């Protein structure tokens, strides 16, 4: 099974730490001793961890029957590849044991054993991360949660869902849709990613604008601690001011201080009336103006505001052409595009508001052109223009993906700076100076959240290109007081660069927390805080 699991549709956003909501405006600290490491140069194996052997395998098999390993021939190296490699095929672990526990108790027993033996463990959900956070770096045991996939309970009055961490996001959402509710998170990888992984990486996604971050919607967690103890914090309460809010530490902890085995989450009612419109615009300034107008005219029914540039759209068109699904959308194309989604409970009310906005935008010539979905089929196909960007970039070449938070006004400036830098480095294709390996630099993202994705499409991953991009990209983010990881997290890719977004005190505190929960440093080593 060499192909990465089906990433249901279009990949776009996944994971991680939301450092954009820092409460204090502390100046960005740049560590002078920052050890810069490039993605292809990973840290060496630490001798403090025990190397997994056949004996360990037998003990783990006694705990959990669905354990696969190359050590006893129960699986081939090829078969373990889909656990060792990330879906972009950028990170390649060398784990020899995959444990897939079926219950929280089994997870607990596995951790107890590994803690006692000093074996490092990488927790893994749907393995759809973009920063190499869910694959082993060396020979860590892979603790895959896909067998922990039951919905435990749902309360139709409060909307509180309790489910295992290994439930696939789309499965949870389909379950809720039947009951007229919606999961307060939606992202491109929904057909593969797990809700436990979503929480542990603090995934943001397409509807954060409307439903807020997981820090607000998650009410409780069940976690297996690194030493195997089970912490039952599956609260269903919205208000609970009794002591430290421990679950918050786990939201965005990327499996470094415990394994999320179940979540309790508050789910809103599913909007019964939804609309989507896509516009072409002539400049990034125009996108910002439309954003302001959309908020003003639509108010509470605005559920998503996404933007993408013409380079992104070109990638999507090419991808659709190759698959026979291209379709003319705009009479007048532009340098930028934006997508507005509304969701409400009254179709007439929503339509009146949306029509008001559209008329205003047309009359004041704030957009070049636009289309409005007339039915559910068009609703899906218009969304796909935006959702297909990451997948289309992936089909066009090897993609360097960056996910940053910056103030909305400065967002697109980063893409322009990155293009200039690559042109200067002589690696941008068709710039006259060279037949460079970079085919496209595409910018898109969640306007509503100040979250920009930069995808740099190259012929292949090389050190030369990476050195031009990094750490330059993090420097320009820091200059703009942004975050180097808006929602993808740190993983192994961005761990060395956390200093661009967090000051020394923050990092020191994080290290102390890690030490407190995981004194042996066994969970997801070489990543996050290093």
């Amino acid at each position, binding site marked *: 099974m060499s192909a990465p699991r089906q990433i249901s549709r279009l990949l776009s956003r996944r994971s991680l730490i939301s450092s954009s909501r820092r409460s204090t405006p502390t100046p960005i600290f740049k560590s002078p001793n920052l050890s810069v490491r490039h993605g292809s140069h990973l840290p060496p194996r630490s001798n403090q961890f025990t190397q997994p052997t056949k004996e360990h395998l037998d003990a783990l098999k006694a705990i959990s029957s669905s354990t696969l390993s190359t050590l006893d021939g129960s699986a081939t190296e090829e078969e373990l590849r889909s656990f060792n490699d990330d879906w972009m095929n950028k990170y390649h672990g060398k784990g020899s044991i995959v444990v897939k526990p079926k219950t929280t108790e089994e997870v607990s027993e596995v951790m107890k054993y590994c803690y006692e033996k000093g074996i490092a463990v990488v927790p893994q959900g749907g393995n759809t991360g973009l920063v190499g956070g869910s694959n082993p770096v060396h020979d860590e045991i892979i603790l895959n949660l896909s067998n922990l996939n039951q919905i435990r309970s749902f309360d139709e009055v409060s909307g509180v869902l309790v489910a295992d961490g290994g439930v696939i996001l789309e499965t949870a959402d389909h379950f809720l849709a039947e009951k007229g509710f919606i999961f307060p998170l939606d992202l491109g990888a929904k057909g593969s990613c797990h809700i436990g992984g979503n929480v542990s990486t603090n995934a943001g996604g397409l509807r954060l604008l409307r439903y807020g971050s997981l820090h607000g919607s998650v009410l409780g967690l069940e976690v297996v601690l690194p030493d195997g103890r089970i912490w039952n914090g599956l609260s269903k309460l919205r208000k609970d001011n009794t002591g430290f809010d421990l679950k918050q530490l786990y939201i965005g902890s990327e499996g470094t201080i415990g394994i999320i085995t179940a979540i309790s989450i508050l789910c809103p009612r599913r909007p019964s*009336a939804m609309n989507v*419109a896509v*516009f072409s615009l002539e400049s990034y300034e125009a996108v910002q103006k439309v954003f302001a107008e959309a908020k003003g005219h639509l108010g509470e029914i605005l559920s998503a505001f996404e933007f993408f540039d013409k380079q992104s759209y070109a990638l999507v068109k090419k991808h659709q052409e190759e698959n026979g699904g291209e*379709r*003319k*959308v*705009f*009479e007048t194309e532009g340098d930028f595009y934006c997508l507005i989604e509304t969701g409400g409970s009254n*179709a007439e009310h929503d339509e009146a508001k949306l029509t008001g906005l*559209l*008329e205003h*935008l*047309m009359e004041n010539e704030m*957009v070049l*052109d*636009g*289309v*409005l*979905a*007339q*039915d*559910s*089929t*068009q*609703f*899906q196909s*218009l969304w796909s223009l935006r959702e297909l960007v990451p997948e289309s970039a992936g089909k066009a070449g090897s993609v360097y993906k960056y996910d940053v938070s910056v103030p909305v006004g400065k967002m697109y400036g980063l893409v322009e700076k990155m293009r200039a830098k690559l042109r200067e480095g002589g690696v941008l294709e068709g710039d006259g100076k060279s037949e460079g390996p970079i085919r496209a630099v595409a910018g898109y993202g969640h306007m509503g959240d100040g979250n920009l994705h930069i995808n740099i499409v190259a012929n292949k991953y090389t050190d030369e290109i990476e050195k031009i991009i990094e750490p330059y990209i993090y420097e320009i983010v820091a200059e703009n007081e942004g975050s180097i990881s808006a929602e993808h997290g740190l993983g192994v890719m961005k761990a060395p660069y956390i200093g661009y977004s967090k000051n020394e005190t923050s990092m020191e505190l994080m290290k102390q927390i890690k030490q407190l929960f995981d004194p042996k440093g066994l969970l997801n080593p070489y990543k996050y805080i290093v």
Partner: protein
Amino acid sequence: MRPTLPRLVNILVPVKRSIDYAVKIRVASDGKGVDTNVKHSMNPFDEIAVEEAIRLREKKTTKVDNITAISIGPAKAVDTIRTALAMGADSGIHITTPENAVVEPIAVANALKKIIDDKKFDLVIMGKQAIDDDSGSTGGMLAGLLGWSQGSFASKLEVEDGGKVNVTREIDGGLEKIEAKLPMIVTTDLRLNEPRYASLPNIMKAKKKKIETFKPEDLGLDLTPRFETISVSEPPKRQGGGKVESVDELVSKMKEAGVI
């Protein structure tokens, strides 16, 4: 020899407001229909018909004088007509019916005939069926009532300047090409075209386009249904699968079920 005067073609496109293609259909509590309190859109085959009419005009091999969208339905059917106007139709006709009234194909065909008799149309392009009742008979009935030619299940349509029409039809096992003369009825199949999106400038323009409204009695029509729906039921629920531990167990289960 004097050139023949270019023929101006008037096209009528019937459009139906039906339950959106993506909506999960549920049986209504009285067991005599389905829950209609859900999202409605234009019947997808009718959308293809509107698109084809606009493409005929854009191709310019035929001079299209006017494209009229007509809908028979409740007040909200106006939204469906507006969608056709936003796509590029020129004007609309709305024959109003009470909310949730059932209008059978023969009644629709009679109403369309009445409109066609009163106003001059040369070509009717309509969906081969509506996705709600799946009757698929209005096109044929209308052709019969008018005594016009018909090209059903069209996957390709060409109208020449002299009024000659070539229709490629999708039939079992292949394609059939027929040739006819205007006036005629063409019903659309899925592969005829892919309908365009309604652009904002056209949505705005559509608001200013004229929609004539008639009550059935104004036109001397009787839309009373001839059939009574006795009951509507859901298909039997699929039984969930089960897991077996071994091949032996699988074989014994299959024997149990009598499939081997």
